[in-house]
């Protein structure tokens, strides 16, 4: 059996409000609640609710043979609780089918691993607790923020007891090898690695509605044929993408929901093909080789490295600033302060400060609530200055 393994990332950032130098010392209120609520409700309407409805329908229709997985960040879970409880409810319904796996990551969708292993583990544990509480399952599979990965991440994750880890199938780490097999991280004894097939994943996530693309329009039939062509050269086809692909990045009018509606049937019609969740796939397949990844990879931009968050002076400065507060923050044992500090670690804050706009400009601008990376930095530093003040109290 060759698996088609789907994992969808669900995340919304906690955007900061316009916070001026002259607010420092006058307001502890950092987030743009109106905007966060409006965006979440909009995305719920366009994507989460209709996509979840469709997924549920497909799972019921295929009687357990259509299996998928999600990773919902702590940040988006909080927003759903506040602004769209019906969305959270629909994810719980999916969990109850027994055909959906929920993955773990850092609760705050942060870059903690790069700065503090302790804080990283605390955020992961916190996320696992919330997932268990909301969806009644203990996560077995881990994905780090934006699929940031190297050997060290693997060691840390194995130490925490995960069986499966997800990473980007970047050419740089694979070389001549195929992403369509299970691998084992170089330092690991048990942990298994699933690598994103970025070509097939991006055919759906990025290229689906692109009329200049020679394969446009993409139909479920055509896609199933491409998957079928991998027979003999793979055991798992890993389709990992943002869930917002369905209805938000690719609007309903592009036919993305019809594509999704037809895909399971076409895949299941192929002899020897079926769906699996990451931990199921890693349980039933043996690793074909060890994979040595000393340098960081991620799924961001063309570089597939860390430069989207940690590529310029401002990002370094802001990141060093927030992580330098770890000790004093933790020593307060003040839950509210700790949470506020963690909310400032969400990777999006630093993504907004990215200045490599000329090559990757489009994606960055689409997701950026600021006019410029400089504005993002200035606003963040003002907020952080106020936070630091209240810390000294």
């Amino acid at each position, binding site marked *: 059996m060759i698996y088609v393994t789907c994992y969808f990332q669900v995340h919304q950032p906690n955007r900061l409000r316009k916070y001026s*130098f*002259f607010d420092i010392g006058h307001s502890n209120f950092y987030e743009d609640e109106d905007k966060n609520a409006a965006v979440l409700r909009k995305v719920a309407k366009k994507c989460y609710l209709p996509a979840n409805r469709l997924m549920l329908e497909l799972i019921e229709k295929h009687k357990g043979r259509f299996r998928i997985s999600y990773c919902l960040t702590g940040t988006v879970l909080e927003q759903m609780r506040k602004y769209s409880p019906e969305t959270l409810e629909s994810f719980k319904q999916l969990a109850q089918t027994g055909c959906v796996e929920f993955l773990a990551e850092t609760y705050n969708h942060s870059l903690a691993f790069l700065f503090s292993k302790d804080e990283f583990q605390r955020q992961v544990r916190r996320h696992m607790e919330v997932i268990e509480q909301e969806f009644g399952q203990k996560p077995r599979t881990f994905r780090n923020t934006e699929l940031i990965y190297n050997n060290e991440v693997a060691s840390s994750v194995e130490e925490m007891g995960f069986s499966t880890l997800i990473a980007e199938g970047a050419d740089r780490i694979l070389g001549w090898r195929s992403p369509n097999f299970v691998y084992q991280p170089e330092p690991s004894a048990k942990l298994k690695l699933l690598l994103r097939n970025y070509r097939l994943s991006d055919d759906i996530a990025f290229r689906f509605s692109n009329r200049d693309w020679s394969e446009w329009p993409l139909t479920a039939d055509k896609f199933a044929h491409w998957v079928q062509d991998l027979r003999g050269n793979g055991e798992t086809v890993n389709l990992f993408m943002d869930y917002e692909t369905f209805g938000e990045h690719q609007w309903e009018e592009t036919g993305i929901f019809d594509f999704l509606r037809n895909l399971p049937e076409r895949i299941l019609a192929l002899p020897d093909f079926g769906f699996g969740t990451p931990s199921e796939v890693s349980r039933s397949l043996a690793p074909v080789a060890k994979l040595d990844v000393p340098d960081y990879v991620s799924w961001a931009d063309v570089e597939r490295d860390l430069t989207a968050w940690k590529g*310029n*002076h401002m990002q*370094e*400065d802001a990141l060093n600033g927030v992580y330098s507060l770890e000790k004093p923050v933790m020593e307060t044992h003040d839950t509210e302060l700790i949470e506020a500090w963690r909310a400032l670690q969400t990777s999006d804050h630093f993504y907004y400060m990215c200045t490599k706009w000329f090559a990757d400009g489009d994606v960055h601008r689409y997701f950026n609530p600021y006019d410029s990376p*400089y*504005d993002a930095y*200035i606003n963040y*530093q003002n907020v952080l200055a106020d936070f630091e003040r209240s810390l000294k109290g």
Partner: protein
Amino acid sequence: MRILMYGWEFPPHISGGLGVACFGMTQALAARGFETTFVLPKLKEGMTRESHVDLVGVSQFPVTSARPRSAREDLEMLKAKVTEIAKNVELKSVDSLLSPYLTEGSYMTELRKLQKIEGEDEQTAQDKEVSANAQGFQMEMSGDYGPNLMAEIARYAAVAGSIANTVPHDVIHSHDWLTVLAGIEAKRVSGKPLVVHAHALEFDRSGENVNQMVYDIERLGMQKADRVVAVSHYTKDIIVRRYGIDPEKVEVVHNAVIRDTYEVPVPDRNKKRDKVVLFLGRITYQKGPDYFVEAAAKVLRAREDVRFVMAGSGDMAPRVIERVAQLGIGRRFHFTGFLNGAAVEKMYLESDIYVMPSVSEPFGISPLEAMRYDVPVIISRQSGVSEILKHALKVDFWDIDELANKILALLDHSALRTEIVDKASKELEGIQWDNAARRLGEIYSAVATA
């Protein structure tokens, strides 16, 4: 292709951005094989020799009337001319000051010289009185040259036709309202297509209090032109909305930086001293000096190790000085008056931040100058240059809190400064006159073959 260009100033004798822009533009056009004849009100020393264009001074051409006309007569002739060209345009009083350049010291000096050569005319005293009444304080700085400027424009336009008759050309290109009538006259004589280039509009200079005659001349020029060139989308928008010109007829060609071999000295900003925040430009309504003062007061309430410098002169200077005194920040706020080239360079080298809070800036070349000296710039969004600069901080001119916020951010965070300065210097390399020349070449071809 041969271009007959009508301009008002040309290096080394310049008072504002117009002359610099004309120089950069004609140089890049020459490199692309265009032969340009550049017409000026008057040729001055040091102009012809090293130039890449044929410079022609209007004063070289014979005056047609039997006796030298007075300024008042010139003015009457101008009115008649405009009325004749545009029968439906109603002309109002012209007894007011006309150009921001009128308040510019260097320009005044040039005009003064010009007038000495031409000799005093008997109407001057009367003109002075009228203008003084109309303009109050402004009169004092600009003196009695307002009416003479109009007279010059009239004479320039009158001679433009005979120049067009003598100089072979394929396209006529005129810069700003000062030369619009000349362009129209040239087109009438030679029948060649006319390109009118808008570097600044009466709405930029005067806000809602437009001088009707200047507005009429500008509009007339754009109506008569085969193609209008705007220095920014910002300016194009005003041309379409305020002058009712068909957007299809207006092309945007951004200005650029003149590439010279001059290497700017490396500034030493590590010396321990007060930080310097610079405003450099005319102290006029258009440049938003009052917003700079208000932001300065806010910054100084947050930190004291900052000095604000306002370099330039203009009709708003007294009001601005008074406001600085009223806010009690005079100890930290300095006025240098008008600065010449060497002093400007020294000022940039001494500055940590450059602010251009313009209320309405068609393009705004000075931030690009500041960037050459590794000074990070804060510019108003109401400027053309903000359309092409990514690595600058931007504010709405009226948002003084945000301006202060950004000044403070640059002072507080060296990472921000480093990032902007690094990226801006690379960005500056890409802002080349050759791009503008290429676009102009396309426009010339389009009108010449139409």
